[in-house]
């Protein structure tokens, strides 16, 4: 295991508890496959015994991450591979999402500040909510770029 992957794995295993179960999803990066995969994810998380609220949060987070990969990392392609793994630990779902597209600008995660919606009608934001939602609903969010892969790790508290 290379250093970056080991670092990501250690982040997932930083407490000594044993994962209850491990789930894996693979999809091609386009809106139709994203939609199908989100439905599969909610089914699998339901089967794993997560609460409706935790499943709802996971669906929003995976949706925003996948959409970001489709629109930015794989901009202009419809067949880019996306891999997602989730380990159901006792306190949180620990997740890793990988893609093989363009790197994040400056190799940094977007700050994800809430767009300002206090102005007049014409100025209301129609986008820019994605990373804000991801940051609101996750903890321990981190990004690595290694050998042409984007690796996002995070936890979804139950």
């Amino acid at each position: 295991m290379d250093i970056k992957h080991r670092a990501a794995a250690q982040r997932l295993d930083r407490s000594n508890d044993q994962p209850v179960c491990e789930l894996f999803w693979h999809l091609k990066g386009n809106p139709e496959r994203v939609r199908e995969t989100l439905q599969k994810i909610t089914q699998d998380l339901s089967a794993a015994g997560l609460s409706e609220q935790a499943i709802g949060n996971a669906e929003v987070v995976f949706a925003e991450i996948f959409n970001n990969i489709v629109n930015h990392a794989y901009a202009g392609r419809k067949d880019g591979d996306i891999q997602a793994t989730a380990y159901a630990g006792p306190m949180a779902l620990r997740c890793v999402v990988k893609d093989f597209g363009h790197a994040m600008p400056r190799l940094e995660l977007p700050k994800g500040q809430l767009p300002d919606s206090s102005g007049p009608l014409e100025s209301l934001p129609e986008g820019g909510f994605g990373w804000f939602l991801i940051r609101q609903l996750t903890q321990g969010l981190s990004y690595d770029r290694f050998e042409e892969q984007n690796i996002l790790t995070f936890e979804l508290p139950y």
Partner: protein
Amino acid sequence: MQLNAEVHDNLMLVKLQADRLDAAVAIEFKDQMRAVTQGGPARVVLDLGQVSFLDSSGLGAVVAAMKHLGNDRRLELADLQPNVEKVFKLTCMDRVFIIHESGDAALASSVNVA
């Protein structure tokens, strides 16, 4: 995805017939909203009761639909399901829209205003 529009006196009730308002249908939704709200009453209520999931693309499309109505008309929302309501609340967009418990509640409020 389909939009069903009914005109009640001074209010147009638009029901979105889809389980999901997401990146796969956001553009189609915006286009259809423009078409069905062309002309008609100043108040437009979008009933999202059938929608169990909305992502930020869907949220952006709802905002775009309101902006398209302009300053003389208004888009209101009705019957937000829990996971949809959560996205509106987290992003503070629940403060931008008037949100009714149901399409019927929106119609009742129309009587009060009139």
